[in-house]
């Protein structure tokens, strides 16, 4: 199994989408349930809360992005190409990198977003600041995405 480039690539793509998806899932879950609690008291904050809740959702999208790029790179959609073992490992590591970066930053961003939602619940005018605080964590998911993009893109099959 670890001698086939194509298998390694697919594992890498799956890990990227899977772990980053879990990260986003937990993140949005934490922010979303907090937002639902605040909504019961202040329904007119829905727009602002929706934005903050959606923030930890981006990691899942980045994971998906790396997964699709990786699968497109190995030609899975167009009939398949020969994938060397080295290329397979490159994609695997890119996937692990994106997956872990997305997993941890997603969960933690969810916590910051949830705390921010609490603050917005008390004072709607701090929404912008709560968004900025939450976005700071996302930087590290984006760095993961960046490196993974560069790795996947530079692969010679």
């Amino acid at each position, binding site marked *: 199994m670890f001698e086939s480039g194509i298998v390694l690539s697919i594992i890498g793509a799956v890990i990227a989408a899977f772990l980053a998806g879990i990260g986003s899932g937990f993140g949005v879950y934490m922010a979303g349930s907090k937002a639902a609690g605040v909504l019961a008291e202040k329904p007119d904050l829905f727009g602002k809360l929706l934005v903050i809740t959606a923030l930890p*959702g981006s990691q899942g*999208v980045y994971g998906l992005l790396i997964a699709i790029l990786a699968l497109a790179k190995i030609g899975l959609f167009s009939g398949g190409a020969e994938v060397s073992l080295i290329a397979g490992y490159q994609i695997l590591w890119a996937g692990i990198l994106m997956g872990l970066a997305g997993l941890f930053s997603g969960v933690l961003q969810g916590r910051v977003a949830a705390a921010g939602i609490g603050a917005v619940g008390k004072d709607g005018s701090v929404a912008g600041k709560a968004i900025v605080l939450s976005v700071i964590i996302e930087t590290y998911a984006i760095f993961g995405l960046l490196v993974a993009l560069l790795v996947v893109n530079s692969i010679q099959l």
Partner: protein
Amino acid sequence: MAKVALQKVLVTGFRTHYKILMQELHRSGLLEIVDTSDLNTGEVETEDHFGAYDLARIDGVITFLKPYETVKTQADSMLSGGKLVMSEDDAKARVKDFGVKSADILQEAEEAEENLVRYENEVAKIQKRRAELEPFRLFKMSIEKDYSTETTKSWVGSVAKAQQKTLMEDLLGESNLIDIDIFAEGSGNVYFRVTADKSMESFVADTLNEMRFEEYDFSMEFSDCYGKKPREVLYAFEKEETELVEKRASLEVRVRELAVHLDDLRILCDYNAWRKTKNDIQHKMLKTKNLFAFEAWMPKKSFDTFSVWLQNAFAGEVSIEKVEASEGEEAPVLIKNKRGFASFEPITEMFALPGAKDIDPTAYLAPFFFIFFGLCLSDVGYGLILMFVSLWFLLFGKFSRTAKDGLLLLVFCGLGATLGGIILGGYFGMTPEQAPSFLLNSDFVAGVEGVTPFIGQLLDPMAGQGPILFLGLAMGLGMLQLLTGVFLDFYRQMKNGNYMDAVCDPLAWFFLLLMIVFWLLGKTTGFVSESLFQTMVLIATGILVITQGRKQKIWILKPLSGILGLYNITAYVSDLLSYSRIMALGLATGVIGFAMNLTAGILGGMMPHPVLGFVVAVIIVVCGHGLNFALSLLSAFVHSGRLQFIEFFGKFYEGGGRKFEPFIREKKYLFFRN
């Protein structure tokens, strides 16, 4: 294009002019009145509790009536931003007409709301009782607390249906002094009454216990129905429920009629709110029997016109003079930028308004935000949609100035995304093979480097050296913004009179960063002399070593802390790296769009019939791009904002100013047409 200079003024005058003056001030919104109530030693008027109460009542009734509004009013239209558009005279006339009736309508609406809630509760209560009594519908006896007589004992209740046979056998088989009357079955239970001679009481009780008999006690819920048969009671309940439902329905019809007055109520709500603010403001100022005086902030440049107007309008009986702000008092902040730049003010406000020593950063962040947003969203299709939808609202909607500025910001964002899309070749995530030929360069050949596929495209972020070029572009723009930020810090410190600090910190750093940029430029491209700028970098470093330690008292520490100060370069490096997000987000939009098109193609091709396949593909394309559009828009906006707040503002901006809040008529529902 900056912070508006504000002047503190003192206004004094005769009480006779107070009312008219306040009315005009309230209308114009020129002044922010300072709270000087702590100086008030004379008569303190009581607060207008009735005004607050009235306002709360009207608000409550509006909320109650809103769901019953059947006729679509202006306020429902998206183009009016949920406001009632009318002239001030019309609004005044309507308030006057409606004012007389309003008390009755408010009272009726409040009573109706109360009654509706009561009916609702009563219906729910009856339904609960009905459900409870329903199994006893065929129970032949009337409802009593206890069915035992002197010689017999009775139990009324239920066991699980599966137990029915055992129950009959065990009890009836035991003695003919036991009688069972089964009167209902339902939801897996049988309902029955057991009557037995007192001598059998403990036996029956034990047997029933074994079968998990649930005894029913009428005294818990139905003590008011003793003596009546369950069937009769149920019938009465049904009748009562129907009556209540009918009453509720006819009341709702009436409420719908009342909802016709919603627009009048909305106008009244705004008018009452104004009356309340006007009334509240007097507690902030000094008033005696004949005189009034208050302090206020106003834009400096309006001072002359305003004092002339006061002079003319009140025949010199109201005076105004400039005063100094008291010790420790910070002036409120009002920022005003030229149209266009003004639409970027919300971004500044999202962080914080400029503090006392800050400059207004809006005009400087605007071009960067525009470019960053454009490169992050980077799709011609999305950009055009965003631009034209916002433009349509801007041109045909009736919104306040602030809302229009916000829409203009979205128009700019759309324009930026369109330009970014052209530069990076983003057209709904289409590959060159999928794109219509009029978008393509005629001499483009797939697989050959050198010519980009789309017309106007500068770099192809997904092929060859494209990603590295894009990354370089992002970092280059980032460097430009960091240099701007450091330079603005120099400017700000000079303006505040800290000449020494301005030269030693921001200017020295600016010099070093600029020299590093040129050095790297020389190293990579050879346009400028590498060795010259290498020397310049060393000189700049030397300057920093000298300047950074200037605040140390002991001479030996000066060079040491100067060298340590160089460590700050890491902060600039990490700031610069942060700009790589522009590239990542720019790529993300295109790749996800591409993935949506791909999915649509694959799933559409899998359908058994080509027409069905086409429909499926269209649905996936529309939903997929809708989702991508929304998510990319959100990321592009928040991340472009973040780059301003953390990387850019971090260099020169503190914020923390208090917003200038003029004494003005807040319009919650109204929008006055001129």
